[in-house]
Each structure stands twice: as structure tokens, then as C-alpha cells.
């Protein structure tokens, strides 16, 4: 009986144990690497904003756009503040390429915020624009541009659209700003849907035009 037992499982612990432990360690290591990669994205996003904040404060009012760091392929364009939520973000010049990892970015070919037309600013839903879900119609969003100009926008509505059918006209009449991020907010994957907040410029808060119609429900029903 004893012989049978030891014969059936002869050297299984000694020979299997080491490779097995190595495998376990590798899995744990890969897990750590992934966690680190995820945290790195958040850390980069948060750290970059503090660096950009200093760079923007220096660049304000200067005629030439300056780069926040020498190898950056973007410049700081504006500071975006959601008044009620107390957020503040530095908007970068170009949403192409890698700028979105560092901050919200102005989409190429759209107006500067405050100018005539629609200025479109996009950012990641889980970093810089995670406050977008809290925005309500009637909220004020303040923008300070690089050239020192200030503008205040009032949120009109929010909607969900596919990225290739955003319905945003960059040459729309009036002064508009569209803030866009991915939707749904809590999803772990990427998808084609975007959450778009439309805001219109208001010059004097005391003579605010009334909301033309109740906003299109998405904010309320979310």
C-alpha cells in the first residue's frame, strides 16, 4: 500500500514545484505590469496637467505658441473650467496623435473657443473628462485662451452620437463649444459612441437667453 502510493506519485512535488512556481510568478508579474500600465496612464494624465498648468500660466498673453516641453508635438491653447464642479484643465492644440494622453485637446480644423463656429474639445472619459458626466444644462464653463481672451459658455444640451456622425458643424452660426468624450462612461472597452455636450457662448450673464427647449433628455435620463 505504501509502495503503491509513493509509486503513483513518485517525484511530483520536487520536479513540478519549481516550474509551477515560476509560472505563478510570471502570471503575477504580468498582472502587475498591466496594473502598472493602467495606473501609469492615470499618473501621466494627472502629472502632465500640473506641468501644463505652469507652462500655460507662462504662455498666457505671449504671441508665439510655446511647447510645454521641447519634444512635445502640441502647444497649450486654453484653460477650461467647469464653474459648478470646480474642475480645471489645460487644453492642448491638437487631438491627433498622442496629445490626448496629456490633456483635453482641440480638434484640428475647428474654431478656437470663443470664436465664431464650433470649437470641439475632446478628452478621455476616464481621466480629464470624467467630470463631463456631472455637467448639467445651465452650467457655466469658463475658458481662458492662450492670447488672454476669456469667454463664458453655458451648457445647452448633451447627446450621444457615433464618432463618425457627430452632427457637429465646425462652421455653425454663433459661438459654440462642443465637449466630447467616450460613452458609456463606465465601460471598460472602447466603442464608437461619444457623449457630446453642446455649450453656447454667453457674454453677459445677467441677460442670459432662456433655454430654447428642455434639453434632449440624455442628461436627465442617464
Amino acid at each position: 500500500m505504501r509502495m503503491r502510493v509513493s509509486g503513483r506519485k513518485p517525484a511530483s512535488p520536487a520536479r513540478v514545484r519549481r516550474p509551477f512556481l515560476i509560472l505563478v510568478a510570471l502570471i503575477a508579474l504580468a498582472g502587475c505590469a498591466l496594473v502598472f500600465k493602467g495606473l501609469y496612464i492615470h499618473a501621466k494624465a494627472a502629472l502632465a496637467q500640473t506641468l501644463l498648468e505652469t507652462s500655460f500660466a507662462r504662455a498666457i498673453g505671449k504671441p508665439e505658441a510655446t511647447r510645454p516641453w521641447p519634444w512635445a508635438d502640441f502647444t497649450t491653447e486654453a484653460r477650461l473650467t467647469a464653474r459648478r464642479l470646480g474642475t480645471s484643465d489645460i487644453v492642448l492644440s491638437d487631438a491627433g496623435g498622442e496629445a490626448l494622453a496629456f490633456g483635453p485637446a482641440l480638434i484640428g480644423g475647428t474654431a478656437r473657443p470663443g470664436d465664431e463656429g464650433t470649437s470641439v474639445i475632446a478628452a478621455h472619459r476616464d481621466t480629464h473628462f470624467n467630470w463631463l458626466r456631472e455637467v448639467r444644462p445651465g452650467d457655466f464653463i469658463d475658458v481662458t485662451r492662450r492670447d488672454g481672451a476669456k469667454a463664458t459658455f453655458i451648457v445647452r444640451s448633451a447627446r450621444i452620437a457615433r464618432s463618425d456622425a457627430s452632427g457637429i458643424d465646425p462652421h455653425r452660426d454663433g459661438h459654440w463649444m462642443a465637449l466630447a468624450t467616450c460613452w458609456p462612461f463606465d465601460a471598460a472597452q472602447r466603442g464608437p459612441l461619444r457623449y457630446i455636450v453642446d455649450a453656447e457662448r454667453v457674454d453677459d450673464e445677467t441677460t442670459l437667453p432662456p433655454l430654447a427647449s428642455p434639453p434632449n433628455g440624455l442628461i436627465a435620463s442617464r
Partner: protein
Amino acid sequence: MLEDDDFLLATPQRVIRARMTRFAALALAACLAMFAILVSSADADTSDTTAYTSATAVPRLAGLVRPNDVNSGSLLLPSKEPGFFVEAPRLKTDVTIDVDGPILRAKVTQRFMNPTEGWVEGTYVFPLPEGSAVDRLKMQVGERMIEGRIKPRQEAREIYEKAKAEGKKTALLEQQRPNIFTNQVANIGPGETVVVQIEYQETVRMSDGAFSFRFPMVVAPRYNPDPIVQTVDFKGGSGFAVTDPVPDRDKITAPVLDPRENAKTNPVSLTVNLDAGFPVGEVRTPYHAMRETDNSDGSRTYSLSEDSVPADRDFEMAWNSAAGAVPSAGLFRQVVDGQTYLMAFLTPPSVDNAEKPAREVIFVIDNSGSMAGDSIRQAREALALAISRLDARDRFNIIRFDDTYESFFPGLVAATPDRRETAIARVRKLDAEGGTEMLPALREALENQGPVEKGALRQVIFLTDGAIGNENQLFETITKDRGEARVFTVGIGSAPNSFFMTRAAEVGRGTFTHVGSEAEIGEKMKALFAKLENPAMRDVTASFEGGITGDISPDPIPDLYFGEPVVLTARLPEEIKEGAIRLTGEIAGNPWRAELPLDKAAPATGIGKLWARRTIADLETERLTTRDSEALDRRIETIALDHHLVSRLTSLVAVDVTPSRPDGEPLGSAKVPLNLPAGWDFDAVFGEQPALPSPAPMQKAQAGANRLMAVADTRMIAAAPTAEAAQAVAASANRNMVVLPQTATLASRDIMIGLLMILFAVMLFVASRLLWSTFAPETVSTRERAD
């Protein structure tokens, strides 16, 4: 002892088995969990539609359209779902196109119906060929007939909004893009019929001795997702239901309307009066069968055959001249308010020695960080294609730049097969990172490549997204240092800086090519290669002879590529019949000269409007580069008002005098029979055309249209006029609308999967410890025995 031993061992063995089973179960569960998570995340990427529908929680019905789907004139009524619209049933479309020499004038009359129980504001969207001049709008709403007047845009909108608020029928025709126009119609009563008539003018396209035009008439593809409405019918209390989720699926999901059915529900009659101005040879309408009638004055009339399938392809007509009478030049004149307007076209002779010239090509490719992702892939692909087209006689060099730049070769080198392959291999390895310093690379390309060899064409080809700030500096450099070279720009990505690209190509005397997606590379680059590889007519100038002055546009005249005619318009401040226009140029080293005597000019209509439309287009381009845009805006507005043209700054507005929706009147009014006022040639719309010999088919058509509407479900239409919705149509009718970037990081997914993996590892570890701890005594005992 043995028994004892047996007994002692038996327990651990059972324990081992139990633990092993538990371990295996745990491992299996962990594996399953991870697998499920990975699958679900992969799955989510494909199941967008369901995510969208469940998000909005509104079942989408077939028949809703987005403004972007509209390819032909359509009246859109706002639906209850933001961003989506119901296309009003189109009862009949009648198109008359008069071709008079180089100019064509189209009159489009369409009849729509408001199928709802409420008063609505509809938005009529119509895409037209770029360069069309829209100058006329007439509309009949129910019994009311209104004609549009030209006003400055802002003023027109105010008039419209005021009339709308007062309950008057009113219409506003605005230009949203040079090729997209919208017409808003307010206060259309329940069941009322709207007749819209627009007129526009356009030039006949000329290329390689052939003349052609195109009329958009494709029916909008319906937004038609998989139906998600499910009705479950439990029978007999068995708890199981046998049901077809969508009983009328075949009606809803029909991807294309049956052409015959469609011809009835959406009948189109189309007539072309062709007066080419020269003996016409072959006339082709590739997608439609036509009946031909010869008129006494030498012109011909074409109309659609009854049994043709009208509305699934754009209408196209092309003609050439009878043999031996190829018109290589034309000159037309119109006198308006004492001013002479001229239009001239001339196809330069083709060069006999058709041998392709040797080329010296310098490619400049942007691999800065802004190109990361799709852009750099497309740029690499396009560049590899261009290199592979080079000939052994050609010489070439490649410069890549980010915030540094680097030449692949020390200077221009012969494009031997070996070098081409090396270059392509190197191009394929380019990665996008770093800043964008274009100027040094541009200088390197323009200044440091040595002199141009005799007879060779020097071409600089720029592949970039143009994400730069110092545009003016770059334009200056190109103008100053270009020398013999032509600068061609290739814009990469969905939103390149087209202003920079267009202007750089303009000052560089080249062309701008936009490659928007992977799929477009082949086609777009092929068109570019045709221009690059054939000799072009260069340094073209035009001037007046015989002591007269006037402005000629375009100025400067761009290079003319293979088979392209030069098309000029000019305005003279007085009525002039003498003198000439002199053209000079150079093709493949040979000088070229031509003269067009003004006394031979044929009188034609529409030349003044053509001049105005082109001048406005020129001013719009100029406006991009000037600081004083207001002065240009004023000039554009003046010209548009003078010539009764819709432009970015002027709109047509029509207001009915009496309110049709007075206060207090109940909304559901009786259907009003339509009485046509005299003098309106809407006959065709009302079934007196041979295509519809008796009124009976017309009624059928109407019934068909109503059926169509039933599918779309009239309840989806928002009843009240919504200004915002109309604004949204205007906004999104634009095909160049902003494409939003990917704005989700994979951070949370990575963290989640990472944590799961750690958890899994910990679980394995703990489980194995448990397992081995049971083995341990035995191991020891085995060893002891060995000792």
C-alpha cells in the same frame, strides 16, 4: 503495523483527493472568469448598435433618416428622436435642364406632403455640384404661393423668424456649404402639400474633348437597423411562446425599394434640352434610358423613358462633338447693366512627342507625433506607392521630419530598383513621434538638392497633416525658393489642415490631394500620378489685347494638366465688342500662344452669374489669407446681392402676406385642394406628362407614398415646429462634419485584467501550498526510507 499504516495513509489520501478536486475546481473557475472577461471585452467592440439602442431606450423605426443620408433634395421633418428625421413623402419630382453652350440651368420642382396632424416646420436639404449658383426659389404651401427675395443672411433670418412666430408661411434658403443648401419652410398645415421649386446654374464640365454634367437624384438610404421590437404571445398557459419577433420584417428590412414600386412612389420626370452650340456627335446617359426628339432649331430634347429606373443612380449625361468638329475653344458674352461678362475656354494642344519627361522628385514626409496612428500608416502607404512609380531615368530623394529632419540620400539619386526598394523598406519603418518643425525640411527640399537637369521636371511632394502654426513663413519660403519646382501637397488623415495644404499647393503651382482613409489611397494617388507623370502646360497667362482693360479670373492661372481646358471668366466695365484675349504658356519646353477675338464671342445667358459665382469663390479663398476679412465680406455680399445669388452671406427669404395659422384656429384643418395659379409650369408635377398618362397612377402613387409613410410611422414626427431641430439639420447636413477621436483609454480594463491575473496567481499559489503541505510528510518519509 501494516493495518495501522494503511489506516494512517488512508486519511491523507482522501484529504489529498479532496484538496486536489477543490484546487482543480478553483483553477477552472478562475480560468473561466478570466476567459469570460476577455471575451466580453472583445465582444463589446462589435456590439455597438445594441449598446446604442439600449442606451437611448427608444425603438428605432425604419424610415428615419439622418441629414447625412440625404443625397437628393428631400424635405425633412424633425422626428421625436434628436438627430433623426422623417423624410416627408415625395409625391413627384420634375427636373428640367437647359444646356446652352457651356452653361446649364436646372429647374427642380418637387411636391411633398405633410402627413401629420400638426403644423410643422420642415427643412429641405439639397446637395448640388460644387460651384452651382442658386438664384431662385419658389414655393407653394397649400394654397399659398411665395417667391424668395435675396437679402443679407442675418436680415433674411430675422424676417423668417418673425414671420414664423406670427404664424405666416415662410421659407428661408441658406447656403451651408458651397455645395449644400437648406431651405426651411415654416407653418405647413396638417395634410398640406408643399411644392418647392429651385433653380440653379452650373457650368458644363469639359475634359479631354468630352462634355458632361451630373444631377444628384439618389434616394436616401434609410436608416434601417435590425428591428429590436419583440412581441411575445403566450398561448395556453404553457409558459412557452412561439413567435416571430417582427411580424412584418420583410416590409421593414427591405434594403432597397423595389424599383417599380419606387418609380411609382417617387416618380421622377427629367427633361434635358441640349443646345451644345456645336454639332453634337454621340450623347450618352450611362445609367438611364432616354427618348430623343430633334427640335427645329437644331437642339435636341431628351426625356426619361417611362420604364427606366430613375432614382437609384445619379443622372449623368455626356456628349462629344460630331467628327471633325472638336471644339478646342469657346468664347461667350453677356451684357448685363452695361457691363460685359465673358467666358472663355480653351483646350491646349497635346504634345506630339508623348514621351514622359524625366522627373526629379523630392518626397517630404511628416513623421511627427501628430501623425501617430492611422495617419502615419496612410502616409507610409502612399509614399511607398509613389516611390514604386518612379522610373530608372528619374532621380529622387526622401526627407523625413519631426522636430529634426533627415535625408535618406545625400542628394538626388537615380531611382534604380535597388534604391527604390531600400527607400521603401526605410519608409515602412518610420514611426510618428516628436514635434513638427517643417521649415528646415522644406528648405532642405527646395534649396539643397542641386540644380535642375535640362528637360527634367522638379517636383516636391509633401505628405503631412499640416498641424503647424507658422504657415505664413512656409508660404514665403515656398514662393521665394521654389524656382523651377512644383510643390504638391498630400493631406493625410481625416482632418488635415486643408487651408495650409491648398494654399501651399497654390503658391507652389502644384495641386492638393486629400487622402482621408486607407481605402482612398489607391484612387487618389493614381489621379496625382497622372498629373505628375505627364507634361503640363505651365506659366499660363491671360491678358486683353487692343487697349481694353478688365479683370480676368483666375489669377494667376494654374498649370494645366493632361486634357484639362483653361476656363476663364472676365468682366469689362463697358459694352465692348472688339479686341481679343491673348493666352500664353509653355508646354514641354515649347512656347504656346493663342488669341480669342472678342467680336467672335457668342451671346449667351448666365455668364454674369457665372462670373459672380467664381468671383465669390475666389474672394472666399482670398479671405482665408487676409487679415481684413470684413472688407472682403462686404464685397462678397455686394456681388451676391447684385446678381441675386445665394452665398455664405446672402439668403433667399419668402414670406406669405397673410397668416395661415391664425391664433385660436384649431390645428387639425381640412385638407385643402390644390389650385395652381396661372403662369406656373407645374404641369409636369400634376400628371400631364407622358410618363403619367392618366390621373389614376398619380392617385396610386399617392397611396404608395402614404404606405411608405406608414412604415416610417407618422407618430415619430415631432408635432410642433422646433427651431433647434431645424438648426441641427442645417448643421449636420454638412458632410465635412467633425469626426471625433477615440477618447477611451484602456486603463481601467488593463487594471482590471491585471488585478484578476494577480488574484489568479495568488489563488494558484495558495492552492499549491495546501496541496504540497499534504505531500510533504510523504516526501519526508520516502526520503527517510531511502536513507
